[in-house]
């Protein structure tokens, strides 16, 4: 497990405060990055304040990420340590439904995994 520094909302009323979060160990298909910049989307605000009524707390909003790759799993082919990498709103999907097969994984019929506030296939929430 990795411990990362973050700013989190602990409930719908709280401002974002410094917080430590735990990430599962990276798997063979995972890329580890050091985050350099993160854009601020209105979705972050909606989610931090539970305005869509689905927020899992503590919540670390932010899904316009640019970072530098620090390590890659052994099955990763497209990235190497030192590369720039971007992360958007989505970090995973089921991979086998009709939408995923069509390369439209943002419409994954089993629900894509959001970069934050998302359930992870076989793990903790993002």
């Amino acid at each position, binding site marked *: 497990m990795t411990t990362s520094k973050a700013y989190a909302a602990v409930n719908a009323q709280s401002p974002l405060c410094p917080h430590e979060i735990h990430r599962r160990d990276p798997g063979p298909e995972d890329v580890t990055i050091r985050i350099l910049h993160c854009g*601020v989307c209105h979705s972050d605000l909606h989610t931090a304040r539970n305005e869509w009524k689905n927020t899992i707390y503590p919540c670390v909003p932010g899904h316009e990420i640019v970072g530098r790759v620090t390590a890659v799993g052994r099955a990763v082919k497209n990235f190497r340590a030192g590369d720039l990498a971007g992360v958007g709103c989505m970090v995973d999907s089921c991979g086998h439904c009709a939408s995923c097969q069509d390369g439209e994984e943002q419409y994954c019929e089993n629900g894509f995994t959001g970069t934050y506030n998302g359930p992870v296939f076989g793990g903790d929430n993002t």
Partner: protein
Amino acid sequence: MGVKIANALGAHVTLFTTSSSKVDDGRRLGAHEVCLSTNPADMARYTNRLDFILNTVAAPHNLDAYLSLLKRDGTMTLVGAPAEPHPSPGVFNLIFKRRQLAGSLIGGVRETQEMLDFCAQHNVLSDIEPIPIDYINTAYERMLRNDVKYRFVIDMTTLN
């Protein structure tokens, strides 16, 4: 970014904004025309004139005011996600011009890469306001006050 990308794609672009302070910026971003949506006379000039509207507004508002600007067979696509629903649009406004009201989510990995490659090729860059992370709660308040012109971007090296 919507304005910049639409311009790079070759469209004739009109920016609709509620704030007169964004008029000059809109032109600089690549809008050929800027309409002040709070001015009914300005809005009326666009009735039945637009092929497509990309609606990025994340707050409930009157959709009819924009649907009526579409030509026959025009489409307005909603990409903003307000916490409360928009008032339902009038159906007459849709059927008498066979207009379409649509929605769209983010792109997938393939489309996102295509977008980034297109932007790199056409030198389409974001205008940003960089902030340290301890400014984030102020940034949120400014977003709620509409006191933001460009994307806030957190410099994560300020997270210690």
